[in-house]
């Protein structure tokens, strides 16, 4: 089956780019190709001008499920990356402590994932990629399985983390408000085969907080995105 077609998409360094699309539009496939888990049948994926041939710690991924190693404590999950990449403990331990502090997990270092709530697990998942100091952060609906309240807490957390580190982010979501709240640009995808229908720039001042969702600019953008999505759903319904 054709998942994606003629995707021509690029992200500027330090850009927070969101991809918005209905489920099954192939947005996860796109992320998996950027991550190096899947290879495109046609075309190529470049990261920093170099062709992507496989996963690389410079392009770290946060999945929808936390995907933590259940047999490791929070600390061991967070040090897995630096240890594996041969970073000396003296270098990564202070970094790990700082990142855990940033995501509010100080004091939980010895806990196992089974002892944590969904939101806390996802914080560990974010922490373990942040300590890698990746050039690019790939996030595949990272808050999609959390309840509404935890989700907004996590969105604010991500905002504060990102506004400090300013990494390039590719963020996949089907939540319009989430995309507009977090990103510099929102690309709306069409249903299968997935294409990028339109890319909007989110001109909202930073640092942002949840209050931004009340502003007129935000709501104007939201209307525009929702109209795009409705057009698309109607087209699919007509052709379906």
């Amino acid at each position, binding site marked *: 089956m054709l998942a994606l077609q003629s995707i021509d998409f690029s992200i500027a360094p330090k850009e927070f780019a969101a991809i918005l699309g209905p489920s099954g539009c192939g947005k996860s496939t796109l992320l998996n190709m950027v991550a190096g888990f899947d290879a495109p049948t046609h075309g190529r994926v470049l990261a920093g001008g170099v062709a992507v041939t496989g*996963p690389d710690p410079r392009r770290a*991924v946060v999945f929808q499920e936390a995907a933590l*190693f259940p*047999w490791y404590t929070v600390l061991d999950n967070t040090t897995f990356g630096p240890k594996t990449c041969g970073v000396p403990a003296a270098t990564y331990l202070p970094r790990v402590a700082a990142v855990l502090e940033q995501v509010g997990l100080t004091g939980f270092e010895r806990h196992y994932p089974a002892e944590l709530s969904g939101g806390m697990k996802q914080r560990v998942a974010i922490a373990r990629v942040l300590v890698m100091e990746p050039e690019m952060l790939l996030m595949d609906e990272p808050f999609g399985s959390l309840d509404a309240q935890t989700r907004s807490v996590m969105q604010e957390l991500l905002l504060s983390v990102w506004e400090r580190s300013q990494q390039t982010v590719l963020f996949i979501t089907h939540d319009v408000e989430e995309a507009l709240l977090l990103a510099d640009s929102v690309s709306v995808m069409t249903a299968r085969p997935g294409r990028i229908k339109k890319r909007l720039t989110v001109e909202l001042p930073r640092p942002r907080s949840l209050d931004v969702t009340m502003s007129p600019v935000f709501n104007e953008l939201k209307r525009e995105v929702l109209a795009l999505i409705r057009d698309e759903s109607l087209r699919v319904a007509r052709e379906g």
Partner: protein
Amino acid sequence: MRRLPWFLLPPLILLGVWDLTVRWQWVAPGIIPAPAQVAESWYWWIFGAPTRSLSPYSGTWTANVLYSARRVLQGFGLAAVLGIPLGILIGWNRLVARVVDPSIQLLRPVPITAWLPFSIAVFGIYDASALFLIGLGAFYPIVVNTTHGVRDTHLLLLRAARMLGAQRLTILVKVVFPSALPAIFTGLRLGIGVAWTAVIVAEMIAVKSGLGYVLWDAYYVGRMDICVATMFSVGLLGFVSDRLIVLASRVALRWRTLEAHA
């Protein structure tokens, strides 16, 4: 009510039925020994009887238990040492799986009892024969469960490890092995059960010591009380060794039994 040891009810009923069967002679007398008689014989078998020092069984229980336990431990250990790495290889490498797995699946249905003549012919009436049978019997559940455990490793965890920079060996040691560990323990539990079955079979025929040998010998000389005491002994030892593995798995798999309190 809930705290009472209800699990004792079925054995007590069984014991009662057994006692009445003998007492009221529901079967011809002399075939089944009474529970009390089994208990007494078992006691003398363990601790020795000064007045019955002529009995060939008096005080020999411990020695025979040690014979059997050592064979089980050695055979089972051999099966684990070979079965776990091989299971990991089969589960991890498609080429190994294609070459080795069909042979294992073809040999697996051959019961260990069917291997007895072969084993005696090749290894003689020695320990090696018993170890071969025990090891072979325990090997299958260990290798099969390990393979399944390795194959069941969650794709997302493999991807997570890869994007964190892990190469194949690191993934195998730090992700696939711990992920397969619960299945490996299941294999070990099944394996130890088979090992106790195999040791009795082997000792009945292929060697001249141990509980299996006593069982068959006692049957030949009409000592059903010793036979039944042997059955209880084997059951008890099997139970204890299974509990030990469960205990080890609880320690090794502590991360699974924890509960969220956040």
